[in-house]
């Protein structure tokens, strides 16, 4: 079922890719006539795949274009990307450096605004939002997991997790932060600072911070970039667990295909376009890999 849905979007992406090739700007204007097709198809697929019957994609990108002006040169980082992601998906965005995958992740993460095209996140049209509104969207809808986890130095684990709650102006922050830490199994390390935590514990604190606002999606930007195999697998196991057991939508950006193979859908980006969007045939189970690894000395 999932395969079917994924291939449908692949077809769409491919079609769009062909169109955009001619003129990136046209792509952004033309999409309004085409999207009827996927939304028309999706309900059945969604209904089949997602028991709760969510019809709308949680992420909906149409003709997303980003042009940077570097001196007198225009750099086309994104040349019209169409993408739909549905609740509960676990997908990897792959591509070599310079492919535009980081730009795409910045757009999805609401860290930057597109030059053209539209991006709808959980029903919110983000391209019209100002900086403060974007910050609010990041705060409430997106949980970030960064490379190296980007924990604040000298700040205790529980305070790291409280950070998004602070900016949301939420009450009983401490209680919620501790609950998130407990959920990730690091409740007993709440008072510890990053320097007093193991790599695995830091991962869990970072994920607790990403989850504490109960975001619509989790954005993981090269989370395994600096990790050894064991830590990478541990992190992936955690993400797989969250996706499977809690149904959390996860978008992971990576350039490692074996990491991407832990997800269920791979979107390949090259030269600012989606060139391939496929379901992962045989998902690598991190727990299985971990079991096969020699035990840590």
């Amino acid at each position, binding site marked *: 079922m999932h395969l079917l849905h994924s291939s449908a979007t692949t077809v769409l992406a491919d079609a769009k890719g062909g169109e955009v090739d001619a003129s990136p700007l046209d792509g952004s204007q033309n999409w309004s006539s085409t999207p009827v097709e996927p939304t028309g198809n999706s309900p059945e697929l969604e209904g089949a795949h997602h028991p709760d019957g969510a019809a709308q994609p949680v992420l909906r990108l149409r003709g997303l274009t980003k042009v940077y002006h570097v001196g007198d040169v225009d750099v086309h980082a994104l040349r019209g990307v169409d993408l739909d992601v549905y609740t509960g998906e676990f997908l990897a965005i792959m591509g070599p450096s310079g492919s535009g995958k980081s730009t795409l992740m910045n757009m999805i993460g609401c860290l930057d605004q597109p030059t053209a095209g539209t991006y709808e996140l959980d029903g919110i049209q983000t391209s019209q939002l100002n900086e403060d509104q974007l910050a609010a969207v990041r*705060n409430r809808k997106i949980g970030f997991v960064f490379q190296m986890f*980007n924990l604040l130095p000298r700040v205790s684990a529980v305070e790291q997790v409280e950070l998004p709650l602070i900016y949301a*102006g939420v009450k009983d922050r401490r209680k919620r932060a501790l609950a998130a830490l407990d959920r990730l199994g690091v409740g007993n390390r709440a008072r510890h600072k990053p320097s007093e935590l193991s790599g695995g514990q830091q991962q869990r604190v970072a994920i607790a911070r990403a989850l504490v606002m109960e975001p619509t999606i989790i954005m993981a930007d090269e989370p395994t970039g600096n990790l050894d195999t064991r830590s990478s697998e541990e992190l992936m196991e955690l993400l797989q667990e969250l996706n499977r057991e809690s149904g959390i939508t996860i978008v992971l950006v990576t350039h490692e295909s074996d990491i991407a193979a832990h997800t269920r859908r791979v979107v390949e980006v090259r030269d600012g376009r989606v060139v391939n969007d496929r379901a992962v045939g045989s998902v690598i189970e991190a727990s299985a890999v971990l079991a096969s690894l020699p035990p840590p000395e």
Partner: protein
Amino acid sequence: MQLPLSLRVALLALFSNKLRAALTMLGVVIGVAAVVSLMSIGRGAQAQITEQVQSLGTNLLFITPGQQRQQGNVRSGAGGAQTLSWSDAQAIQDELGGNLLTAVVAERQIGGAQLIASGQNLQTRVIGVSPGYDSVRNYPVAAGSFITDTHMEQRARVIVLGSGVTQKLFGDGDPLDQNVRVSTSGRTGAQMRVIGVLEPKGGSLQNLDDQAFVPFTTVGARLAPSRTPQAAEMVSSITVSVADEKLIDDAIQQISSLIRQRHRVAEDDFVISSQRDFLQSLNQITALFTAFLGAIAGISLVVGGIGIMNIMLVSVTERTREIGIRKAVGARARDILSQFLVEAVVVSLAGGLTGIGVGIGISRLVSQLDLGGRAIPSIVAPDAALLAFTVSAAVGLFFGIYPAMRAARLNPIEALRYE
């Protein structure tokens, strides 16, 4: 993000680098301490001077010889080289004494007099005065008595010593009825009997304890360099006490016209100044002085502020990644702005409070210093402390706003990528 929380975040950031925070604070501490202590000392000096002048009463008039015109064929008035004479004082007393003026006293200063007693030798100021001078000029007698009319008539060889002179000549011994030899340049000197000792007065302008008084007539007869009758009459100033402060302008006018008449001059060869004018100009000078000290100290406060700005800029650069993380998890530009602003203000306010404490300490310490028998008084003015506190907060805000704005404007993507 409400204030207590951003305060906590700021404190956390400050405590994570204690030495740097302390050094940054030091600039403000020094600035505020300088402002507070210098202002306190300035105020203290001002208050002391004012009190001294006021202790004489504000209803005094001083008549002193004015400039003499010798050019052309302008005649000089009676009194020769010195325009004021003992007879002027007599005339003022005779004509205006009673209702308008309650007292008229004259004095004549002899510079460079030498006092010798019990093997001690002292160069000091000797003033010939008429009786009543002690009460008009407020010199309470500690022991013995002051100069009387009898002493005046007899040109008596008696002397009243200031407390400083007594201390230097006799130490702790009893000076009364002891003999003091007073010699001036040009005269061999005369033995004078000590009839009184004055209470200590101190003084900011000149030390009022380092002087001695003799009868006015004695100066002419025994101490003045020239022995002509005219020279014996010379006075260096006449002090009159006006019955009521409201009558001061009236008194000035009447005395002026009287002396003009006596001296037969068109242009005044004397100056009348009132205690009130004196007090006013003195207050102006000391206030200016205090403000000047404060302004100099204020410069160091600005330097302290620049120190804050410098450190805040470094801190923003160092914490670029932190700012990126905060922005990614939902901090708005104003959250980042307030975080860094609060940090700058906390540093400057903490520095300001410490500075007020240090400044008060310094001014206390200085006022306890004994500088040759004279202490520098200090008054910690609450408004000066408040001013310093407010200014230090303003310094933090002013010098913190630019670094904070730079932090707030950081692009989250670049900030996250910053190594």
